[in-house]
């Protein structure tokens, strides 16, 4: 089964929550980049 079809199984509420979470992914990405730079000792 194709993984990309998984949103089809979401309820409306789950879909909206997933959309909101997706809109926050940039913040999550930036936090992960900051953490990685810290690990590498890069400012």
């Amino acid at each position, binding site marked *: 089964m194709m*993984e*990309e079809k998984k949103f089809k199984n979401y309820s409306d509420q789950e879909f909206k929550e997933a959309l909101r979470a*997706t809109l926050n992914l940039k913040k999550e*990405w930036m936090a992960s*980049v900051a953490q990685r730079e810290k690990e*590498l000792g890069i400012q």
Partner: protein
Amino acid sequence: MRLSADRINRKSPYWVIQLDELTFRFVTKNGILYRVGFYQDRFFLGSRAYHFFIANDSEASAPKDGDVFRVITCVLEEFFRQDASVMLYICDPHDHREAIRDSLYKRWFNGYTHKRRLTLETAEINFDNYIVYTGMILRNDHPEYDELLTAYREFVQRASSLYQIQPK
């Protein structure tokens, strides 16, 4: 998936430093630090799709610099070296410049020398009082091209049933 800073730096006007498999940083001649990378999708298209992000450390809008555009082209070319690559983007609305970002993606795509190899599918989602500009880019020879395009369109349709959406 692991992208290569070595390959990017062969063509990039700015020296790119690799932070991890999918993330890079570079500093422009104006001293603006950019971070650019891909982040795996978890919610809609699954592990084979990656969100593309770019951020700079300038609080004001960064000065116009065509070389930034060229670096981005090098990074995206590296990403699309693999036929199974799927890139998603959502234009950051935090400073109300999302429409400008969306037009930059389209400008990049339309000006890209090898755009015939790629497909860009875009949509605008009217989400809680603001518009979210989003898009998907994939190679035309992606092994699951039809399925992914259908999945993206189904996602857009589904969102349109929950929000007002304007597919393009």
